[in-house]
């Protein structure tokens, strides 16, 4: 009962994941400007390499960000359309949730520890969300997601006492020193693991993008 997982919040990352959470095949590329060119090829590749036929997929899980606009949309429209083409459900999970869950596993964090998961928001800001490690389902959201300057997260205490992880913080080591050995990007398999536990708890998992920023309506409008 394999799932396809897609995350385009940072790298282009895809995986075929079994329903016990095991990764059958995965691929990722850190090319933030080439999401649109790489994603479909990588999906096609992991399907081939995993030996899973398209029609064996039972669902698609996509990271909903937060992330810069264009790359995030590539992941979400691909997930939605592929789910539609295959006739399987599509679920959305925050990419920062998956990053935090990955950090808990990678760093073997005990219950009660707090994690600040961050992503690169460009424009000198980071995406962030703060979590507490819990018994089940593993992470509990305390605050966020939001977008802010690294210094602002320090000033408002949001970074205090938390294990800091993610590519956002990696750009600001002075303000947000990262935990050693912490993951930089979400593992798409964590999207599936979180989705399965949330679905089991009866949650609905919409795929609305977490843009966190309003469209820039200044500058010259384009012509049709």
């Amino acid at each position, binding site marked *: 009962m394999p799932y396809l997982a897609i995350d385009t919040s940072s790298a282009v990352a895809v995986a075929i994941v079994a329903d016990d959470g095991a990764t059958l095949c995965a691929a990722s590329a850190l090319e933030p400007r080439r999401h*649109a*060119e*790489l*994603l*479909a*090829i990588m*999906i*096609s590749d992991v*399907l081939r390499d995993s030996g899973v036929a*398209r029609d064996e997929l039972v669902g698609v899980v996509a990271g909903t960000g937060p992330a810069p*606009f*264009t790359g995030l*949309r*590539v992941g*979400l*429209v*691909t*997930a*939605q*359309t*592929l789910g*539609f*083409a*295959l006739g399987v459900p599509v679920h959305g999970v925050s990419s920062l949730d998956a990053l935090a869950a990955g950090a808990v596993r990678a760093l073997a964090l005990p219950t009660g520890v707090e994690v600040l998961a961050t992503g690169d928001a460009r424009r000198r800001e980071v995406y962030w969300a703060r979590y507490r490690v819990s018994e089940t389902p593993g992470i509990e959201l305390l605050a966020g997601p939001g977008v802010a300057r690294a210094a602002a997260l320090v000033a408002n205490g949001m970074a205090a006492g938390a294990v800091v992880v993610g590519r956002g913080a990696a750009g600001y080591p002075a303000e947000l020193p990262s935990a050693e050995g912490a993951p930089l990007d979400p593992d798409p398999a964590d999207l599936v693991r979180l989705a399965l536990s949330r679905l089991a708890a009866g949650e609905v998992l919409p795929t609305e*993008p977490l*843009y966190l920023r309003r*469209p*820039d*309506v200044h500058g*010259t*409008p*384009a*012509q*049709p």
Partner: protein
Amino acid sequence: MVRSARSGEGYRGPLLQTVDSSPVSADGSLVLGIETSCDETGVALVRGTELLVDAIASSVDEHARFGGIIPEIASRAHLEAMVPTLRRALAQADVDLAEVDAIAVTAGPGLVGSLTVGAAAAKALSVGLDIPLYGVNHVIGHAAVDELVHGEFPARVMALVVSGGHSSLLLVDDIVTGITELGQTLDDAAGEAFDKVGRLLGLPYPGGPHIDRLARGGNPEAIRFPRGLSRREDLERHRYDFSFSGLKTAVARWVEARQDAGEEIPLADVAASFAASVADVLTAKTIAACQRHEVDTLVIGGGFSANSQLRELAAERCAEAGITLRIPPIRFCTDNGAMIAALGAAALRRGVAPSDLGLPVDSSMPLTLVTR
């Protein structure tokens, strides 16, 4: 969020002049076309040269208050509309996705963020259904769509594609393998010039339809505005190119001079005289190109072909020159999925190699590329 919707099944529009309709192609391949180059999410199904359905969702109402298309708003709307529009198109045509033989999608030109959403969706369908993908040129799609309405093109046609984003004159020996770009605008597109002059005259966005309406009540000969790139020395270098920014400036100066003198602006006459200049240049150069290249069929496409003075003058001058004029109904002239499905189906019929999954979108895709 307001959306408008329209659809049609196997629609055949009225002919401006009688043309010999070619029989529907023996190739009955079913092509699904996706268009997202600007603010319309278009999905259509074409079998051979027969249109089964043309579904569209538009974010135009969200842009009106900004006086132009806001790319990020358009891109967000494409993501929201994609699967619902696909679903609606298939349901209206009573077609199962599994019956589709190929996917066609706009690869450019257009807004990068908008193009990207459509291309990603098209690739997902190509992977999910294991069928070929054709990334096609939007501007050439504006000409190709006429084959759905008036039948396959004769051996050689001239195509004038005019809209808010493009003004191109194409010699078409084959809609997929034989496109020659004879001319294009050096600055503003025709529709863009209308929107700018509309703003100048204090009309709401988009200005085109408002100027058209005003112009119908005015005298097109009241003011002699310049004809862009029509002087002898310009014709040598830019025989079939267009330029509308000088015209726009001339209108602005004329209006300012009247305002400075405290006179009332005869809006209808200004609109009519301005529109007359645009229609005159477009049709004069196009007819000259038809005669020089011995082409007896002219196709006009793109949203600006709704303009009444352009339509009337083109009909009049084509009739004088013995040229058959083909203009699809307006809903096929504005951006839509049918034009993309039509061009994709034509590429498929000619055995053109499909695009690969790495297909990049190209905001300024040249007319030398029909598919990529």
